[in-house]
């Protein structure tokens, strides 16, 4: 199965769940489709949704919750079907 990087288009802070204390949008090992939201990036006091972009199994997050990211950072890896 080919692996696809999900990259951040923008710099900001990456959040894996919609709010503190809530379960993550997606757990590692879960199946996602192209339009699945896998996280939020905070920038300019706004939360910008990050979509999986491809269908498959999200095998790993490369950025921890609430960690800083720059544009083009690899956020997660998806094994496509």
């Amino acid at each position, binding site marked *: 199965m080919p692996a696809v990087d999900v990259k951040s288009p923008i710099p900001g802070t990456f959040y894996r769940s919609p709010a503190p204390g809530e379960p993550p949008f997606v757990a590692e090992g879960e199946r996602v489709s192209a339009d699945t939201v896998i996280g939020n990036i905070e920038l*300019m006091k706004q939360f*910008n949704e990050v979509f999986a972009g491809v269908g498959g199994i999200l095998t790993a997050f490369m950025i921890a919750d609430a960690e*800083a990211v720059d544009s083009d950072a690899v956020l997660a890896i998806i094994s496509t079907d």
Partner: protein
Amino acid sequence: MLEIIKHGLETTVQELPGRIGYWEQGFPPSGPADAWSFRLANLLAGNPRDTAALEWQFIGPTLRFHRDGVIALTGAETAARLDDKSVPMWQTIPVRAGQVLACSPAKTGARGYVAISGGLATANVLGSRATFHMAGLGGLGAGALKAGQQVPLGESGATHKLMRVVDSARPPIAPAASAGTIDNRIAAMLGPNDTWLDDDSIMMFFDSEWTVSTQSNRTGLRMSGPQFTFSAQAYAKPAEHGSEPSNILDHGYPVGGISIAGQTPIIFIHDSPSAGGFFVPFTVPRFDLWRLGQARPHEKLRFRRTSMAQANEGRRRLDKLCSLQSLIEIDTVDA
């Protein structure tokens, strides 16, 4: 007409000098966050330098042109394509009716500009086309532009010179890694309320690295760094000033003012609140505001102490750079 196919992130119509004269009613000046890049874009497109043009933030827009003319891209670095051909920044680009310009997310810097020959002819609101997005003012009546909208254009000349900006006249929009070096320090003057900090804190401010927060936008740049300590004045004050050392009786904020909110410095920029109850020990003079407009989240900023005379000199130097003297001709084409 200019068609917005993708709006990017809060892409707005901006104009200079902005919405001047209504601050006492709460309307900030707005205008481009990096006026240096903005003015060069207009000059490249054959417009007077203060003409209404687009400002995009972090994610550039995709636009379709409905008439022939020229455009120019300046500011934050973007890999832009006109139809399927990549186009350079900092020079005049001829466009034909029907062509589509797609801008990539910013590689360096935060805000990019797209100027179009003839300028944008949106409605004047309180004397300006500048957008104040939070109040839904400017653009097509609701602040930032949205996909599907058609933006009216002004009258454009029949022929256009193809120009480019000489390297020495471009703002040095540094990659995040080199920000905070001596050449990239942001000018700041003491005042209006520097006596509310103690001497150690004033030295500490200019000696420290400050990290731009993701909670920063065109209203203000929020930063994190070391803790401030205060002078006796911040404690020995009437109760109506407020309970925190950083509280002061509500006063007007200058654009570029660096306020202290508890322990968080917040720099007010173009869409700033007009007044509030935090003291303002330092102010970034107008000529260096563009650096704040191009700061990215998590970037490290440093400041250098500037006098009024140096600030005025900086303003005159920048004013000269934002002129036709900074452009060299490449070619002339019929539109």
